[in-house]
């Protein structure tokens, strides 16, 4: 196991409370940051090479540097805790076990950005974690880490938790901002970007939970030291949510650059495939990223071992590569029907499309219907072409990336598993009732 910076001390007693968190070095980074100038904090984050951990991987320091500073206009930091990408559960895990690292990271980041009010936008379904955060925030107020004149420095910050109400699209930053304003979560046309006109038309930075938490170790150890961890432009550590047909599902913190093969088969991580089965495919970064068959997830098309890093997973582009995304690592064994899995994902995107843009609103529905035709045994070869055509007409033709998120799984499943679509066509209705997906052995009829 490599170094862990975020979840290294979850076994320490009371780490979810302020006292336990402080006893393990918590809030030292905040004291250090408040003695620095805000621009020095931004500079440390730039030096660290930290990239957005929510999925897009955009450099955090650069994003912060875009924030507009018109005089007399308040600026806001909003934490994106609307974790909804299928396969991703690291933020919920972190907020539940160690809420103060997020709060400390938010205070430091708000100070760096010059925000005096900040919000944590949490999924409505995570009401349990919502209350954990409220309690932790109260502790931070009582200890003088929040409120007026924080630690006697003259810096004021109010931090609030805001709950959503069930909508994947609110994880998109402008959808989230609309939702925070009390509206439907329809993403906005950019520009203007949130850094110029965000919540209530004020300059706003939206960052993922893990990104803001990572600011704490960066300030603790300095940006230069943080940048030494990892590989190339993939610096630091990353929380990976591992799920599917593996022996040890859960949240793992890895140093970026661990070989994918080691991550899947080592007992330190996923512990190999359940029931001694063979692996068929992996969705490496949440449901939106391209699915890869075993041979391409373990090695790049050039035959080099693939690593858990932004660049290595992306090696070969979308023809033979994929993305690190949010780190939602979904493993499928040899019994899985990737066509049915694709139908499941597509149904999800159809359900979650906000309906603003026709290509996404209509296209996701049509793709779901066509995939259903495959499952029912009524599809023809033309339907594969039709699916390909629809996905290519959604990709890059929508206001927000939900369109791409819906298109990429379709494109990649056809690209890498075309023969399986053909099997559905050739076997027709006789294939319909075959249990061609993984049966979980712990799900026994009572």
């Amino acid at each position: 196991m490599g170094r862990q910076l975020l979840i290294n001390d979850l076994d320490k007693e009371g780490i979810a409370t302020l006292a336990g968190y402080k006893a393990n070095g918590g809030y030292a980074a905040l004291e250090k940051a408040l003695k620095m100038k805000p621009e020095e904090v931004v500079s440390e984050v730039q030096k660290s090479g930290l990239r957005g951990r929510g999925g897009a991987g955009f450099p955090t320091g650069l994003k912060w540097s875009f924030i507009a500073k018109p005089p007399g206009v308040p600026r806001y930091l909003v934490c994106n805790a609307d974790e909804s990408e299928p396969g991703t559960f690291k933020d919920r895990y972190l907020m539940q076990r160690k809420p103060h690292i997020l709060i400390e990271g938010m205070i430091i980041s708000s100070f760096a950005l010059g925000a005096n009010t900040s919000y944590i936008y949490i999924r409505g379904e995570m009401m349990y974690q919502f209350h954990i955060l409220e309690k932790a925030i109260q502790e931070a107020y009582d200890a003088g880490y929040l409120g007026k004149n924080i630690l006697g420095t003259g810096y004021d910050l109010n931090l609030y938790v805001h709950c959503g109400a069930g909508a994947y699209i609110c994880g998109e930053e402008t959808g989230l901002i609309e939702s925070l304003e009390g509206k439907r979560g329809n993403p906005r046309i950019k520009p203007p970007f949130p850094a110029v006109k965000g919540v209530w038309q004020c300059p706003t930075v939206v960052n993922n939970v893990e990104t803001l938490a990572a600011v704490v170790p960066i300030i603790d150890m300095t940006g230069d030291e943080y940048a030494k961890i990892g590989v190339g432009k993939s610096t630091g550590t990353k929380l990976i949510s591992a799920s599917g047909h593996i022996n040890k599902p859960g949240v793992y913190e890895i140093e970026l650059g661990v070989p994918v093969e080691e991550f899947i088969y080592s007992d330190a991580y996923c512990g190999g495939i359940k029931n001694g089965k063979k692996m068929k495919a992996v969705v490496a970064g949440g449901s939106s990223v391209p699915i890869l068959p075993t041979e391409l997830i373990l090695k790049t098309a050039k035959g080099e071992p693939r690593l858990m890093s932004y660049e290595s997973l992306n090696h070969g582009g979308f023809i033979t590569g994929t993305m690190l995304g949010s780190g939602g690592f979904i493993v499928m064994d040899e019994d899985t029907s990737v066509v049915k899995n694709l139908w499941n994902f597509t149904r999800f995107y159809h359900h979650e499309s906000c309906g603003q843009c026709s290509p996404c609103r209509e296209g996701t529905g049509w793709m779901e219907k066509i995939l259903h035709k495959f499952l029912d045994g009524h599809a023809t070869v033309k339907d594969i072409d039709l699916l390909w055509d629809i996905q290519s007409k959604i990709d890059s033709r929508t206001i927000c990336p939900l369109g791409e998120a819906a298109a990429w799984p379709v494109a990649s499943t056809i690209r890498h598993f075309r023969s399986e679509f053909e099997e559905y066509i050739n076997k027709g209705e006789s294939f319909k009732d075959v249990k061609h997906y993984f049966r979980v052995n712990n799900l026994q009829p009572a």
Partner: protein
Amino acid sequence: MAEIKPIKFSDEALALSHKIMKRYPEGKQKSAILPVLHLAQAELGGWLSAPVMDYVASLLSIQPVEVYEVASFYSMYNLKPVGKCVIEVCRTGPCWLMGAEDLVKFIEKKLNIKEGQTTADGMFTLKTVECLASCGTAPMMQIGETYHENLTFEKCSDILDSYKAKGENVSHWRKERITNHSDIKQ
């Protein structure tokens, strides 16, 4: 005709909704709509009828249509009556890979209802929902604020029996939270 009860928050819920509104800048109280609707759903019968939404609109000093358009967008708001206990089974991606489809069929059989329906005794409503960020402990279901994880048929059956034995209303925003809600100093 049955007597129509006036729709009104309890004093605690009303105080809490005002506290929530204060979390947003002056004049931006509309931002409180999502949390206040959660509160309304928990306090006023488990679902959002038009009169309940109108009441929320009056609390926030906004037009009723602004509440309707929001309530109909988000999946957590019930726009028709539900049972005391809403079972939300995750059906997406990893949960599907781990057998969520079979789990839903099992619950349908056990409770003798179909997805989206409520049992005749008004105890349970069965819903399927999208990814609840609990993929490592799939399959799972949410009841109120509680996640029930790593489910087997047997475990699921026991859990449902225990809710039935208690017979209580379960909502995302638990009643006791309303009074215990931390009074954050500003």
